[in-house]
């Protein structure tokens, strides 16, 4: 595999800081009640996983689906921040017209099949999307993210097995951030080495990947996609960490896990690590990266402004539209 170019890497950096800015904005907007509701799960800390995986996709051909921690995937596949932010705020210009909210972002044109809020619920959907690709001989591969906690529900087992039986073109990526809500993986998995489950289903086991290292993520997913395209399903376990606890309902994470969190931020922050690597490798790149940092801030500020100016749905027609296909 050819090494990623400087240009590619700069683009990945851009996506990662954009995600970080977007999530920080969501966090503050929620505190200010400008984003309302009960569910908001931020992707901060996971950036290298999402961006690395998306970078390995063949755009226009491959597909991606995830759970409710979905903002990062939306941005990485290239949905404009303003349409995602509008969805956070339940606006008409939101990607799902304000009906779906933070947990249900999607973009048909980007082959982003959505975020889903029932744990594990999207895994058989990934199986089905992969089946459609196999059936129609598109050559397309589906990337499906999976929470570590989600590996313990029936959907996971049934979906992986079916993908193994039918040799479907799926890359299953466990985003192992060590917790499902407040439960550490060691208290919820009989065998906490999650990637080993692949063996039981005839899915290729690509083992653990450092999810804080975007280059490692990209390389692993690239290889996985190539394999899946011709041979069948693959499982990767990406090791990562969530910076804002489970979600806005999680009021205790920063006290409960203060030391652990501080350590991850100090030693394993995916953006910081990548930035140092780029600065070490490429002369004069720092100015360019600084500019991307500023651009991300600006873009998110504009997205917020756009979203707040977008109207809220208010009519009975809007409420009742799209229950059925007309």
């Amino acid at each position, binding site marked *: 595999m050819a090494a990623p170019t400087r240009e590619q890497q700069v683009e990945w950096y851009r996506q990662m800081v954009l995600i970080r800015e977007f999530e920080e904005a969501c966090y503050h907007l929620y505190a200010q009640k400008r984003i*309302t*509701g*009960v*569910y908001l799960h931020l992707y901060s800390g996971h950036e290298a996983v999402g961006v690395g995986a998306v970078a390995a996709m063949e755009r226009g051909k491959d597909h991606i689906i995830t759970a409710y921690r979905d903002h990062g995937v939306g941005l990485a596949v290239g949905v404009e921040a303003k349409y995602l932010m509008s*969805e956070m705020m*339940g*606006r008409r210009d*939101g990607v*799902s017209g*304000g*009906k*779906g*909210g*933070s*947990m*249900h972002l999607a973009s048909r044109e980007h082959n982003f099949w959505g975020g*889903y*809020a*029932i*744990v*594990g*619920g999207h895994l058989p959907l990934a199986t089905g999307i992969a089946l459609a690709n196999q059936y129609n001989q598109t050559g397309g591969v589906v990337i499906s993210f999976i929470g570590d*906690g*989600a590996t*313990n*529900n*029936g959907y996971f087992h049934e979906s992986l097995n079916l993908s193994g039986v039918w040799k479907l073109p799926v890359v299953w990526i466990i985003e192992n951030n060590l917790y*499902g*809500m*407040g*439960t550490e993986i060691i*208290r*919820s*998995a009989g065998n906490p080495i999650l990637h080993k489950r692949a063996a039981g289903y005839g899915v290729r086991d690509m083992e653990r990947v450092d999810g804080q290292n975007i280059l490692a993520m990209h390389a692993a997913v690239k290889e996985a996609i190539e394999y899946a395209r011709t041979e069948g399903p693959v499982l990767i376990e990406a090791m990562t960490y969530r910076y804002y606890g489970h979600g806005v*309902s999680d009021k205790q994470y920063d006290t409960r896990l203060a030391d652990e969190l501080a350590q991850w931020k100090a030693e394993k922050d995916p953006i910081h690590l990548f930035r140092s690597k780029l600065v070490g490798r490429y002369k004069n790149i720092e100015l360019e990266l600084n500019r991307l940092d500023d651009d991300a801030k600006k873009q998110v500020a504009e997205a917020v402004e756009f979203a707040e100016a977008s109207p*809220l*749905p*208010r*009519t*009975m027609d*809007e*409420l*009742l539209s799209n*229950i059925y296909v007309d």
Partner: protein
Amino acid sequence: MATKNLPMREALRKALMEEMHRDQRVFIMGQEVGYWQGTHRVTRGFIEEFGEKRVRDTPISEMAIGGAAVGAAMAGLRPIAEFMTINFAFLALDAIVNHAAKIHYMFDGMFKVPLVFRAASGWGDQATASHSHAPEPIFAHFPGLYVGCPATAGDAYGMLKTSIRDDNPVLFSESIALYAKPGPVPDDDNYLIPVGKADIKRPGRHVSLITYARGLEWSLLAAKELEKDGIDCEVVDLRWLRPLDTALVFESFKKTGRAVIVEESLPFYSFGSELAAQIQEHCFDYMDAPIKRVSSLDVPLPYSRHIELMALPNAEKVVAAVKEIL
């Protein structure tokens, strides 16, 4: 009877705590019931009080939670299985309806299934379609299962105790919106509200408002409002959807000759349709007006807040329905 004013959450907690002390066979399992202190804080302090043997954090495995509760109950324990929200009980629907509800019958009385499925229920606060259900009538559809839906702290206390002590499986629904709502709770360890016993929460002469769970609040508010116009509402709180206290409903209807059925769930094949059918069948000679139903609109709930509220029942809608038939 001496009472203490407690939020429903604390009333439930007190009932659970007392019943676990009373009977060593009773234990609780579910997601985040232990170290996280319960998603809704109903089991706050339980892990410290009873230890890991009797307060069991589970993986995100609804099928196994539901089915393991059935097996443990058959084998002599008295499980309380908690679904973090009732939306996730759908994943365990088979364990609940095909096993819990049917085993006593299918084996002609050989096995008992004394368990309680507790589930936090209801919509609101932009939880979005997949997380916005009050589906108690679905569970009440199946013979062999009891369904309890308390509307007040005192009822929650007495009904949960009864559910734990009863030898039949009970689906016990706790409205998330009512957890914080205070009310008098009897100071009596043996305060039991019989299964299937409804309660008149407000006597009246002109119209019967028949309801359960959150509907009680809207009905009482509406009754207060209508009082200003000299309309005297009787508010019947069913408390249990199964068994259904039709005797009390008929008695009330025969007095008033008019009914508005108030429910938080969806209108199709609903609590309202069942009750309306029963009333016309048994009280036809007493009917002075068509029976009205106030429920959610027939639509999946959207995220965006104005259209979400539009879809939901409230006291004004109850007032309007009453005025239509008077």
